[in-house]
């Protein structure tokens, strides 16, 4: 598996296609593919209808949502459901989740950047073995280790703390992080390292002043990816925490489901609120995330 080795950010706009080739590409791709064109419209509906219902029903009163036409706009939009959610301790859920996400991202970056750097810059057997281990790690499902983690976290005295969520989440985000980072770092040319070496730069200075600044694209992909993992993770919080004080967003949502019961608009409002922070990040950092993920399938 190889990872996108191009610097991600300017890729979209600055594609160096000559006008003639761009013309050919456009002709080829727009001419054909009526099947894909229709398919994409169908998929658009499949994506949008549930999302539309999610938002519109979260603005309805309960009786309207249950009795009215579910696809109609709310006749009398109300934020009451959102108030119900906010009054049910939603902000503390957001707080806990934010802590988990920030610490996870920091941990993943601090640990993965040196691993990727060593994997790219050294040729020892040890480093290639380590790299291969991370490669395999992509395929380890979290479910496989949850029973032992329950044992270990208990023995470490971390059960029902936010660390119980952070540590395994960070570990499971590391394989992808190392793959993406070593992909971008490999693009830093050997000449630049040599130039710095001639200047007498230490390995640390090379990492800090050359490799890191030039791998910004990869680093932001990794940051967003790990944040997403931390924000949306469910299994680790479910098994490794218990009390309300340590509850994160996903677990809180799950709890609302039984707490609100048939008050479906309130459940939907909670879902909307849980997505807003991630959505904001997506709007800001869409390019980094998409280019990073797209690279996963590269050759």
């Amino acid at each position, binding site marked *: 598996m190889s990872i996108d080795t191009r610097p991600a950010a300017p890729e979209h706009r600055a594609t160096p296609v000559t006008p003639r080739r761009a013309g050919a590409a456009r002709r080829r791709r727009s001419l054909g593919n009526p099947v894909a064109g229709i398919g994409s419209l169908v998929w658009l509906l499949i994506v949008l209808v549930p999302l539309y219902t999610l938002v519109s029903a979260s603005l309805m009163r309960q009786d309207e949502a249950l009795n009215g036409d579910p696809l109609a706009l709310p006749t009398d939009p109300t934020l009451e459901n959102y108030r119900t959610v906010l009054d049910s301790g939603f902000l503390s859920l957001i707080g806990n989740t934010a802590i988990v996400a920030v610490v996870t991202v920091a941990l993943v970056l601090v640990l993965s950047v040196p691993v990727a750097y060593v994997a790219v810059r050294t040729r020892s057997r040890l480093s290639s073995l380590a790299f291969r281990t991370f490669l395999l790690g992509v395929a380890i499902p979290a479910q496989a280790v949850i029973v032992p983690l329950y044992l270990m976290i208990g023995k470490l005295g971390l059960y029902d703390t936010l660390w119980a969520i952070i540590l395994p989440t960070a570990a499971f985000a590391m394989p992808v992080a190392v793959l993406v980072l070593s992909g971008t770092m490999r693009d830093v040319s050997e000449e630049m390292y040599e130039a710095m070496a001639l200047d007498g730069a230490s390995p640390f200075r090379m990492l800090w002043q050359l490799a890191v600044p030039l791998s910004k694209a990869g680093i932001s992909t990794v940051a967003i990816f790990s944040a997403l993992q931390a924000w949306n993770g469910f299994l680790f919080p479910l098994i490794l925490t218990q009390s309300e004080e340590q509850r994160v967003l996903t677990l809180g949502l799950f709890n609302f489901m039984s707490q609100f019961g048939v008050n479906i608009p309130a459940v939907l409002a909670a879902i909307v609120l849980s997505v807003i922070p991630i959505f904001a990040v997506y709007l800001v950092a869409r390019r980094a995330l998409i280019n990073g993920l797209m*690279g996963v*399938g590269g050759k």
Partner: protein
Amino acid sequence: MSHHTPVAKRHGDRKAAVGNVGRPPVAWAVPGILFFAVFAIVPLAIAVYLSFCEWDGLDSPTLTGLDNWTRLFKDSEFGQAAWLSLLLTTISWVFQTPVALLLGVWAAGRQRSRAFLSAIFFIPLLLSTTAIAMLFHALLDPNFGVIQTIGPWLGIDPNVMGSSTGALLVVAFVGGWQFMPFHTLIYQGGARQIPEVLYQAASIDGAGMVRQFFHITLPQLRHTMTTSSVLMIVGSLTYFDTVLIMTKGGPGTDTTILPYLMYRTGFQTYDLGYAAAIATALVVVATSISLIMVRLSGFGSMRSTREGM
């Protein structure tokens, strides 16, 4: 992952003087490797150990030899869960691969409208599995009614969650709804790397769209397809949140796939040794399928798709 070696080697030979200056000490990688080992690799080993133990979560685990494993092979519930897992994985692959392939190749075009639609397609990937499962749980709620309105148009029984087949198909659909954007992106990235010359040559030879798709696009995407399929298979073998939230393994035990059976055994009846055996079996299955796929597709041999160019 060795494509840096030729470059490094070339430079190493030519400029041996500087070649080894400024290489980072391997020790820098140690904290990261240790951390990953402690929280991912070691637990895997402990899972295997625990699969030979009896453990209720309170006292210390006690070794019971092969008990869990002999029980596993006789357990009809495990057999059913393994079968359902394979079924769900197959359905998910058959559903997701053609759609993601089609959407990905389509989205590889650089038109603005396609970029805009792709941005919308991406949204489900931002939602947590929990949120998505709860959303569809609500949409399919017989009282809430969306399914009662839309279902009949599409020929879907509003009580689709009540039937065994229906519930399994819903789980597969919801997983596809969530992860389609991810696989679409993978194919989009792969399709953008196909050299334009191939299509130009084919057009000159008079090959039409369909032939171009089957003779250029598909073969050129075979490594991409392997990557996507492996991730898809490992992913759908581990759909857990969706099942817990939407079906609780039901109706009856008809959507109790392996991860859910593991969860129920481990954390509801606290038979953690047996749960570890199920988890180990799950890893073995997931890893073997991945390895077989990689082997069959020639992905591991690093054969270039640019062969003969």
